[in-house]
């Protein structure tokens, strides 16, 4: 019997159900795990996605033919029973469970096991074969407890207020931005949002997510809150002096898993780097591999080779599934042509 999921020209493909998962181009039928640009592409005839993520997906893809599933609700497509389960990456992000004749595969999409105030908690789904993302699949990537990171962001913001400087925090517009907004002490001062962030905030609110009030970061708002505000902006805006200048001489910071490594931190030339990721770290991936009970593990996105080798040496049947994004660590370097903000040197969505 053939594999339930294969790598085809347009991405992950399930021949038994004749549908793609997060295809790179328009196809007949696409199951979409979440709305980040390297997973949700325009141009497919029909989409299937989680009900929880609908508002956000529509914000990204506009008027599409979209069917939604509640968590764990099943839907038969061809020979395959499909259901979606929370992946914890961003609000509404899903793992895809596929079952045919008792054989179960799970495609994780992007996920994290660390808690997040906005995204639904990751759910372990038992399976025979797991296809896991591997963005941070090296043991140097181990995240600190998020609570401590939130505290550090609050402290940095407070120090800046005391010094009379505006705080500009660079975070991916969809996911990381709302994660941070929901986590910081919103009573401490005014919160401003870049236009791309503001748009995503609205989509989250429409989806029923409670976020603190944010004000659009125009020149007037920047002036009125000078020295007080925490501004959430996509990483690209740091490279636009024209956009940044309204904040005077702000203190800048990045929130990303890549901040774990000093070299990358310094390359950003921000004042601070907060290690806050929406992806699983090394321990997280291993935990999911173990708890899923899978015997076969496919790895995709990121540096898959070391993880594949490590799993093989430890008794798993592991292999690598190439992605269009070249399959190595370049996911953070603008390989993703993000339609909302796609500047050079931005991080991978939600990284």
């Amino acid at each position: 019997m053939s594999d339930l999921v294969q790598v085809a020209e347009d991405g992950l493909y399930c021949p038994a159900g004749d549908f793609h998962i997060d295809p790179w181009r328009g196809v007949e039928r696409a199951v979409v795990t979440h709305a980040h640009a390297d997973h949700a592409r325009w141009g497919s005839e029909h989409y299937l996605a989680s009900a929880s993520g609908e508002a956000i997906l529509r914000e990204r893809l506009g008027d599409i033919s979209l069917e939604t599933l509640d968590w764990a609700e099943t839907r038969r497509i061809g020979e395959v029973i499909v259901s979606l389960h929370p992946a914890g990456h961003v609000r509404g992000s899903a793992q895809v469970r596929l079952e045919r004749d008792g054989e179960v595969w799970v495609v994780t999409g992007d996920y994290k096991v660390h808690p997040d105030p906005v995204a639904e908690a990751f759910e372990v789904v038992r399976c025979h074969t797991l296809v896991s993302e591997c963005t941070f699949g090296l043991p140097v990537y181990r995240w600190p407890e998020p609570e401590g990171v939130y505290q550090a962001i609050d402290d940095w913001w407070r120090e800046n207020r005391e010094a009379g400087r505006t705080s500009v925090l660079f975070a991916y517009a969809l996911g990381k931005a709302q994660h941070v907004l929901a986590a910081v002490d919103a009573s401490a001062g005014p919160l401003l949002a870049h236009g791309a962030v503001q748009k995503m905030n609205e989509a989250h609110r429409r989806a029923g997510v409670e976020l603190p009030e944010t004000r659009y970061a125009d020149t007037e708002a920047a002036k009125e809150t000078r020295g007080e505000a925490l501004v959430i902006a996509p990483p690209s805006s740091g490279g636009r002096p024209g956009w940044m200048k309204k904040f005077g001489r702000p203190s800048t910071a990045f929130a990303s898993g890549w901040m774990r490594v000093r070299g990358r931190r310094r390359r950003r030339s921000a004042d601070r780097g907060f290690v806050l990721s929406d992806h699983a770290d090394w321990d997280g991936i291993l935990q999911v591999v173990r708890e899923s009970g899978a015997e076969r593990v496919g790895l995709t996105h990121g540096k898959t080779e070391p993880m594949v080798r490590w799993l093989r040496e430890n008794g798993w049947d592991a292999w690598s599934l190439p992605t269009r994004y070249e399959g190595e660590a370049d996911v953070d370097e603008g390989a993703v042509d993000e339609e909302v903000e796609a500047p050079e040197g931005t991080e991978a969505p939600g990284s």
Partner: protein
Amino acid sequence: MKRFTELYHELDATTRTTLKVEALERYFREAPPADAVWALWFLSGRRAKRAVNTTLLRSWVAEETGLPLWMVEACYAEVGDLAETLALLLPRAEGGTELPLREVAAERVLALRDLEDEEKRNVVVDSWNRFGTRERLVWHKLITGGFRVGAGRKLVTRALARAAELPPAVVAHRITGQWDPTPDSWERIVRPEDAEGSAARPYPFLLAHPLNDGPDELGALEDWQVEWKWDGIRAQLLHRGGEFLLWSRGEELVTHQFPELQELAPVLPDGLVLDGEVLAWRDGEPLPFGALQRRLGRKKVGETLRTEVPVVFQAYDVLERDGEDLRSRPQAERRALLEEVVEVVSSTPLAPPNLLKVSPRVEASGWAALGALREGARDRGVEGFMLKRRDGEYAVGRPRGLWWKWKVDPLELDAVLIYAQQGHGRRAGLYTDYTFGVWRGEELVPVAKAYTGLTDKQIRTLDRWIRRNTRERFGPVRSVEPEQVFQLAFDGIRTSSRHKSGVALRFPRMARWRQEKAASEATTLEEVEALLARYGDGD
């Protein structure tokens, strides 16, 4: 160790010079002298040599974490910094040790060198258990000898001068040369200014700025003292209290690598400091730098090598005579004094011949004539001109406008990118180390590696191109489609058995990304060999 770790991370976290200087100054003021002197010792570039073999260190981390060694290597390739990689791999540890820096430095850094491997392992593992994650990173930097923190000697000097309330030049002088990291040394370094100086210490070197735009802005040629720019080892020759010392610009004592120069000692007046260049020299001409290189880094220089590569000290300047510091005198006056000193020495009956020379002045009727002379610099075995303002003092560091180096235009060739490897530090995770090839028939043979010359933006663009145009991977190295052509600039060329092309370039760097050129238009090996025949060192 706590305070020093904090300092390290403060320096590491910012790119702003003022913040770095403030952090350093605060540290120097607050830390106990016995610790501060160690911090200064490390910060001013001193290293614990061969404290621990990094291969062993990697294997110990593998054993302690239960990870296979290949995984440690894979992580190192990702992070690009060994000290950091190891710190990230060890289990997280909050907090830190109460051990003071002086104890860590003496017992857990310098002492490692004399231990057997198994004892070393015990100290290393014990330290991992005691230290917090942030301390481990700093400690790894200390024991692997790669302690750099984006605060160069100039910043450290400035901060210490502020903390000690001394002129920076005094501090620069006092921390130059050899001293032990003891409280006594600290006392000597920060004590109030006085006339007494340590006889062994050289002066901080005055360095030249490159003159990139030509001499148009420099005014009249008469205001400048022009010399050839020699390609040797910049050094200060000290003769004080009967002791003869030779310091390189990197502030290493190189006296014993050039034993013949010590024959000058009996005829040199006492209280003398000369600035100049050690050159390999034969039959009235300099030998190429490659020849001089053979004499470096050796414990002992044998008779054969001395005969094959004889050296001279080509003096540029006199910084001290009869014990008097002359550095504030104008260049022209120092030059006259230098000629006088060398004349006196050379006419001493017992003076060894051909060891001490004065760098000749180059005369020309004007800048244009000088420019014409510069064209022939390479054929003379020099790198161009040094322009020294005649009324300038011998200042500290690299101030603008006193000394210019007007180098001959570099040699150039167009080469094709054939291999790429990820960089380190700030360039970790990016393909920034490139190997270039030239055509030998239908084949591209490697001719040089280059790392510099591209903008950050170009590096990112090229990085993406490399990832998408990889042919094969060999560990961390990728071979790429032979499509991208770069103009390489370099300062010299010589034969080399280590390179497949048979040549080695000196200081190769990327002058231009020639996106308009096809790979087939790149330089051929025959053309490179023609350059070698014309400018090579012939050995």
